[in-house]
């Protein structure tokens, strides 16, 4: 069965005032929001700019706001966001400069991710469902690899989509806040670090006013993360460690 969905898309280009265009797109009832955007592009207006690559929530490039809420349109069913009557509104992420239409400039995000030195890979842990993973685990929950395999590795859970930054009210104020994605990446790098000097450097990099201490604890990043991650929790865990270290130093003097 096919649906005729009224889709409003944010338009923004050089020399044109930002506005929305309404397209009535015909898509299958099993279609995703990304399918609908692609249909608008393929059948109505080839100048619509949007980012997309994997279509299965792994590349993180397609993140937008649908009806005001940050989502990955590639894994959001159109029927989940359309009530059958009102327009579905698609806008670019907040808190990034808009390059054109739905495309935002993600360079600050990637600057911070790169600076975090978070490895794109991590050892596999709880990934296999319990009913499958009857494999012995170490104390920290890491799966013991079967003989002959040193360690199963997998890509990080964070897909670097920028949704947490768009959802963050502190980032929305336009300041110098390091942002949930960057801080969560630093926390991942810290979790994998072992050498004391490295840990020092990692923690020191976010101990400033615009680092972990700027977060106003709105928890929106965690609320919106499409991968079910907890950037806010990561920020708090960095704060706890920084606090403990500072107290230790204070009393050692």
């Amino acid at each position, binding site marked *: 069965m096919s649906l005729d969905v009224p889709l409003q898309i944010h338009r923004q280009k050089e020399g044109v005032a930002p506005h929305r*265009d309404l397209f009535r797109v015909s898509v299958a009832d099993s279609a995703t929001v990304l399918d609908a955007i692609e249909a608008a592009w393929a059948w109505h207006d080839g100048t619509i700019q949007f980012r997309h690559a994997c279509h299965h929530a792994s590349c993180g490039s397609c993140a937008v706001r649908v*009806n005001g809420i940050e989502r990955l349109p590639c894994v959001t069913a159109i029927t989940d966001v359309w009530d059958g009557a009102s327009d579905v509104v698609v806008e670019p992420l907040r808190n990034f400069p808009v390059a054109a239409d739905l495309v935002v400039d993600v360079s600050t995000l990637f600057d911070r991710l790169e600076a975090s030195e978070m490895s794109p890979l991590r050892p596999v842990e709880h990934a296999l469902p319990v009913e499958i993973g009857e494999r012995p685990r170490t104390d920290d929950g890491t799966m013991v690899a079967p003989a002959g395999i040193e360690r199963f590795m997998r890509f990080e859970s964070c897909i670097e989509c920028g949704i947490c930054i768009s959802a963050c*009210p502190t980032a929305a104020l*336009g300041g110098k806040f390091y942002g949930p994605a960057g801080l969560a990446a630093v926390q991942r790098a810290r979790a994998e670090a072992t050498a004391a000097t490295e840990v020092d450097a990692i923690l020191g990099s976010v101990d400033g006013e615009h680092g972990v201490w700027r977060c106003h604890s709105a928890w*929106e990043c965690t609320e919106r993360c499409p991968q079910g991650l907890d950037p806010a929790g990561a920020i708090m865990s960095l704060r706890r460690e920084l606090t403990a270290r500072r107290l230790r130093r204070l009393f050692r003097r």
Partner: protein
Amino acid sequence: MKTMETRTPERPPPPRRLASGLDPRRRGAGSWAFVLSRITGLGLVVYLYVHLGVLSLLARGPESWDSFIDVVRSKPFLALDVVVIAGWLVHALNGIRVTLANFSFGARVQKAMFSVAMVVAAVLLVIMSVLIFEGS
């Protein structure tokens, strides 16, 4: 199926916007908490300086202070006090939540903590209002 000609799209009216960071509509409890804290915090700073300013009447001697006290003991002024106390309660209880947040209770607990904080604030506000108006 595919038509190559570009239909002139319909143009809905442009959306109205508040400063996006301070607009908690469609956002979660956390954004409401943040915005409420902001507004009450700034409000309390203003109140602090008004309060300090008013205290300068003390410097002008007993008469000017006591006549001022007579004015602010009136019901409308006491109602204003309730507003200040409400702001103070919201700010203080949310401040407790934010401080406790460092122990990372998780997103769901955060929301619950916000609700609890607001309920406690409401209860305390009622008690204090009763005290204030009964005392007058």
